[in-house]
């Protein structure tokens, strides 16, 4: 099991985003650096959800927004460590949709369950595997750095 280090500020921000956007799904990117046992995330960036047709159970970040997020991250000496989104009134577990649409191998996918507008559990899953064909989610431990 790997470790996802989050600053308290990032942890609070991504959960607050889920509460703010409820009952839609929020989404965004996590910026940081790779460390031997996982990722050290020091910033989060909110992104727009282009799935306005089904925002309560789907999310999508536009490619151009990702390009700009990555460009800004590079300027800060950071990389995209992963992404976060919320599951309104659903568990903080990855769905089959999450897996089929996940393509950032080695990166973390953080999911916050938001129940009746209140953020509850937050989990992180690393997209493991060597290729698209053998990818699988593995749960990471979240460590919050105060």
């Amino acid at each position, binding site marked *: 099991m790997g470790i996802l280090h989050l600053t308290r500020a990032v942890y609070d921000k991504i959960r607050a985003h889920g509460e703010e956007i409820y009952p839609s799904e929020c989404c965004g990117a996590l910026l940081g650096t790779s460390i031997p046992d996982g990722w050290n995330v020091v910033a989060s960036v909110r992104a727009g959800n282009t799935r306005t047709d089904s925002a309560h159970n*789907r999310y999508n970040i536009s490619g151009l927004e990702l390009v700009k997020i990555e460009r800004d991250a590079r300027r800060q000496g950071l990389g995209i460590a992963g992404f976060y989104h919320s599951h309104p009134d659903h568990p903080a577990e990855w769905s089959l949709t999450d897996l089929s649409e996940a393509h950032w191998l080695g990166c973390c996918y953080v999911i916050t369950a938001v129940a009746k507008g209140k953020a509850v559990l937050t989990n992180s899953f690393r997209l493991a595997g060597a290729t698209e064909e053998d990818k699988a989610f593995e749960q990471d431990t979240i460590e919050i750095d105060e």
Partner: protein
Amino acid sequence: MTIFIPTPLRPFAAGKDAVEVEAATISDALDSLTQVHPDLRKHLFTGEGKLRAFVNLYLNDEDVRYLPAKEATTITAADTLSIIPSIAGGCLPHGRPRLRRS
């Protein structure tokens, strides 16, 4: 031109976040990239040699899919090409997936 490599593909590009190539078109640039870093090929292309559907290419700020000449678009040394895998997902109305724990 400069090709920006996303986080998940850097291990297959000697850890680099950007690679400089000399090429006339986007397609040529990708060929040059995968000649220097052949392990990238299977992550970018299908077995039939087509760009994988989830791999987005942006020439500067333009989505290559919507350029008239697409990957045959001519480029200059000052251009940048960003490789960006797509990001999407969402909870499902029913069921709960099997969780693999390491």
